[in-house]
């Protein structure tokens, strides 16, 4: 190939060499590291499970102390959920999604890299605690008061801070994936043509956006209680442990679907390939994905049936739990239908798919059983639940992911996994899994409780437990064989042919071995299975006949299209390799890790450094003014290089991030009203003889008034900038900054002047946390304005290139809403109540 265009393109997308390799931000590198790291955590979690099964193999075993056992089962659950199940979906998606969409990369590659490094640092930190015997011991759900009053040491802090840190990385990945799926599709790929995987990921990323923030809010409350003694969960001072359960399960139930849907998405990619036919019922599957996404938020209370809620609330959630079975069933029927219509090709991959579906159906049936409240009263906190959840999660998540390993291994390495070893793995896993988890249902029905480190003999628990332990080791052996197959040297094995499975979707258009550019030229798509249905597609892609076949300026570029119809909108320049995300993650990690040990000075230094790194990153890497307005992208078309407002990917990222931020804030407000509904004395008249006054009426409202002024000034600043009225822009922005500071001060002054001590009563602490949240956001709002002023001063923003101030204004709309809600709740609600 002697195409100078290809050489330039290759040069632009070259992966850095040597130690600089670790500065790579391209989706294929980051996605691969991410996948391997998540898989390593999975193996760690699996070893913990085996240790537990050894302990439980015989009655009255004293191999582990109760304390060790508690740390191990807590860590097993936390690792599997937070360090494997969620990250693996993000990992696989970062690796696959751009290739499926024929995009060169996701829109914010450095954000993916940042997310990855955060995940690695946080994960090692959380897992490491186990080796020092200081791991958390409260179960992966961390219920207070066990984790607030009855646990000394820093275990819970490690859990709270370490995992909050990882959750932030997950939200970053969700932003990336939503914008990627909506805006970085190839031209012509309308919404009814996108690969089903992208639909699922879109739904899941939106779910992450609304499910994780409540948990972050809960983490914040619990950490404030542990570190500052703000009594959110302390019954003595008006708190209530049930608030944690609500916040946790508003996250925790959707979480089950967050880990399950992406695996089903992998199945949705594999089934048509092996059935040699398009997926039947595309619309039905989209219905199932979107419907499950919505309904799964209406289920959180089914984890709390035995906590003494009103019967009618239990009824509502029981109803929703039954309803979610409908869309779940629909997608499984679609898969089965496709397999029946097509001429099925049998191989290990498909075996894992089928095993996954079968197992998931069994788990789903026991799930419908426990969704019925009276049955749940019996089975609650027994091994029946352990059996049920492992059937759902292993059947729904792990088997499809293993299938995905077999399916996508050639995509990553150009080699194939062995069918022979695969069959051994398959039978070991399938039999081992059923032998391990089926007896748990029986042990549970016999009355064996969960989370016990041992059990007495003579109650009928010995048989099922011994069988379970044997099965667990068979399952573990299966994973060992898989591990060997994945990592054994394959130097002599020939490379696979291009599109080895003869699949129809774009990710298989890559050459073998793959080139770093992602795709030679970005094609026009007009069918769901372009490799099957579009004639001459591969040849045209390879010849560079489509979009962006060249990189004249040596920059990394990809196309941005409209969200519904994928019409061309922009040629987006994406940033290349950099160590900035790495350092940003190290310093952010430092803030969280040092805070765990209450080492406030290093934590403070790290927060300054991380702030500086992130500002440098934004300053040098975003909203760059291009050297020319438009550039030709091929096929005789020209596209703008700079856009702002709703057309820009940055605007979408801001909007999506703010939605997540708002969700966390609403969770805190929910807490305020929660205390009001369940407690007679909220807001209380007095506590321990001292009157408890609120934030007062005047000052919170003054704060809202000032925020309105600031907000108007921000909107004015945006307009004045666009009119190129620079004096007006600077004065309007500076006015906004000054008034923002005053607004924050007024908000703090209210409760402060009334002598509200957050440690006295839950009323003062909830007030405190709302004020704290809002003031931090006001500070952020002011900082963003200062940033815009600096951008304009240094010529990085002008009347035509105004993405910075447009995005900041968007953020300010949400900030305005936050201040308005906080102010009116604090000032007015005590009058209503």
């Amino acid at each position: 190939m002697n195409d100078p265009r290809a050489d330039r393109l290759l040069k632009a997308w070259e992966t850095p060499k040597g130690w600089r390799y670790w500065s790579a931000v391209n989706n294929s590198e980051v996605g691969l590291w991410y996948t391997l790291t998540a898989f390593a955590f999975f193996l760690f979690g699996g070893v913990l499970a085996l240790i537990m099964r050894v302990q439980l193999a015989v009655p009255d075993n004293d191999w582990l102390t109760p304390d060790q056992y508690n740390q191990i089962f807590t860590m097993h659950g936390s690792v599997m959920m937070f360090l494997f199940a969620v990250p693996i979906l993000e990992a696989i998606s970062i690796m696959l999604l751009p290739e499926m969409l024929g995009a060169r990369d996701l829109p914010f590659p450095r954000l993916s890299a940042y997310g990855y490094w955060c995940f690695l640092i946080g994960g090692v930190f959380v897992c490491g605690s186990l080796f020092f015997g200081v791991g958390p011991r409260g179960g992966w759900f961390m219920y207070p008061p066990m984790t607030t009053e009855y646990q000394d040491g820093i275990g819970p802090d490690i859990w709270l801070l370490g995992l909050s840190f990882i959750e932030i990385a997950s939200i970053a990945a969700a932003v990336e994936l939503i914008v990627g799926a909506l805006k970085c599709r190839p031209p012509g790929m309308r919404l009814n043509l996108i690969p089903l995987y992208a639909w699922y990921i879109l739904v899941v990323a939106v779910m992450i956006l609304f499910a994780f923030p409540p948990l972050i809010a809960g983490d914040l409350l619990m950490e404030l209680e542990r570190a500052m003694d703000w009594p959110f969960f302390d019954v003595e001072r008006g708190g209530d442990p049930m608030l944690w359960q609500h916040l946790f399960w508003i996250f925790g139930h959707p979480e089950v679907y967050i880990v399950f849907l992406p695996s089903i998405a992998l199945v949705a990619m594999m089934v048509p390939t092996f059935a040699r036919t398009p997926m039947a019922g595309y619309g039905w599957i989209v219905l199932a994905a979107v419907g499950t996404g919505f309904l799964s938020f209406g289920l959180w209370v089914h984890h709390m049936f035995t906590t003494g809620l009103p019967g009618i609330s239990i009824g509502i959630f029981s109803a929703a739990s039954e309803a979610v079975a409908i869309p779940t069933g629909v997608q499984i029927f679609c898969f089965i239908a496709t397999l029946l219509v097509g001429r099925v090709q049998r191989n290990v991959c498909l075996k894992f798919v089928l095993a996954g579906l079968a197992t998931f159906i069994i788990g789903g049936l026991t799930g419908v059983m426990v969704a019925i409240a009276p049955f749940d009263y019996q089975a609650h906190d027994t091994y029946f639940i352990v059996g049920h959840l492992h059937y759902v999660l292993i059947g729904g998540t792990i088997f499809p992911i293993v299938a995905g390993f077999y399916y996508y291994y050639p995509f990553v390495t150009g080699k194939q996994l062995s069918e022979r070893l695969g069959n051994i793995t398959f039978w070991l896993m399938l039999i081992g899994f059923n032998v391990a988890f089926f007896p748990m249902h029986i042990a549970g029905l016999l009355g064996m409780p969960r989370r016990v480190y041992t059990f007495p003999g003579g109650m009928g628990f010995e048989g099922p437990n011994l069988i379970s332990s044997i099965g667990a080791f068979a399952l573990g052996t299966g994973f060992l064989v898989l591990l060997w197959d994945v990592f054994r040297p394959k130097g002599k094995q020939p490379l696979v042919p291009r599109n080895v499975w003869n699949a129809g979707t774009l990710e298989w258009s890559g050459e073998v071995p793959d080139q770093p550019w992602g795709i030679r030229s970005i094609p026009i798509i007009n069918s769901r299975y372009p490799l099957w249905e579009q004639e001459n597609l591969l040849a045209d892609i390879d010849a560079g006949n489509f979009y962006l076949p060249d990189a004249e300026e040596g920059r990394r570029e990809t196309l941005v299209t409209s969200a519904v119809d994928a019409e061309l909108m922009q040629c987006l320049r994406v940033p290349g390799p950099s160590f900035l995300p790495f350092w940003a993650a190290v310093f952010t990690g430092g803030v969280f890790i040092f805070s765990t040990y209450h080492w406030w000075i290093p934590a403070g230094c790290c927060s300054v450094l991380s702030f500086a790194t992130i500002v440098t990153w934004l300053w040098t890497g975003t909203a760059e003014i291009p050297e020319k307005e438009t550039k030709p992208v091929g096929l005789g078309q020209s596209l703008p290089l700079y856009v702002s407002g709703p057309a820009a990917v940055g605007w979408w990222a801001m909007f999506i991030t703010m939605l997540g931020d708002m969700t966390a804030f609403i969770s805190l407000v929910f807490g305020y009203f929660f205390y009001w509904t369940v407690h007679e004395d909220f807001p209380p008249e007095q506590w321990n003889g001292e009157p408890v006054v609120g934030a007062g009426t005047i000052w919170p409202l003054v704060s809202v008034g000032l925020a309105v002024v600031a907000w108007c000034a921000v909107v004015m600043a945006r307009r004045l900038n666009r009119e190129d009225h620079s004096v007006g822009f600077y004065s309007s922005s500076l006015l906004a900054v000054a008034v923002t500071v005053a607004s924050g001060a007024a908000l703090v002054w209210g409760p402060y002047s009334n002598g509200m001590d957050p440690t006295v009563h839950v009323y003062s602490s909830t007030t405190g946390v709302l004020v704290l949240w809002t003031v931090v956001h006001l500070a952020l709002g002011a900082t963003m304005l200062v940033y815009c002023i600096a951008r304009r001063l240094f010529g990085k923003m002008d009347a035509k290139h105004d993405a910075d101030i447009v995005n900041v204004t968007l953020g300010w709309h949400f900030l305005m809403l936050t201040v308005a809600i906080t102010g009116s709740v604090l000032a007015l609600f005590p009058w209503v109540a």
Partner: protein
Amino acid sequence: MNQQPVPLHDHGQRRPMKKRLWWIAISPTVWAIHFLACYITAAVWCEKIGEGNLRPLQISVGIYTAIALPMIIWVGYSSYRNFRRGDPPVPFDFDDPTDRTHFFGFTAFLLSALSVVATLFTVLVFVLVGSCD
């Protein structure tokens, strides 16, 4: 190469709601709001005010439902009209770039049907359960 270049996005042109992505999310969102309203009303009523008498609670749920169900049904009906203009969607539906509208209609119709069922499930609880406990 027999490809026609893809048109450029026209920022000036406003599109009707039925051609926007969130059209398909309306029905489930109505379900979610209805669900939350029912839950919050029930929680506040049972914890704060209620003395065993569920009548006012049932009436408010009736009002919520009287607002929510027609909305979902309206979305479902107009989506149905949208997709019926095309060919019947079995088994391989709308694999054609121009069929985006049919696809939206079909999915929105299915989601509306699901939302109706889920809403009715919620309402049924208030019909069948006679007390807070």
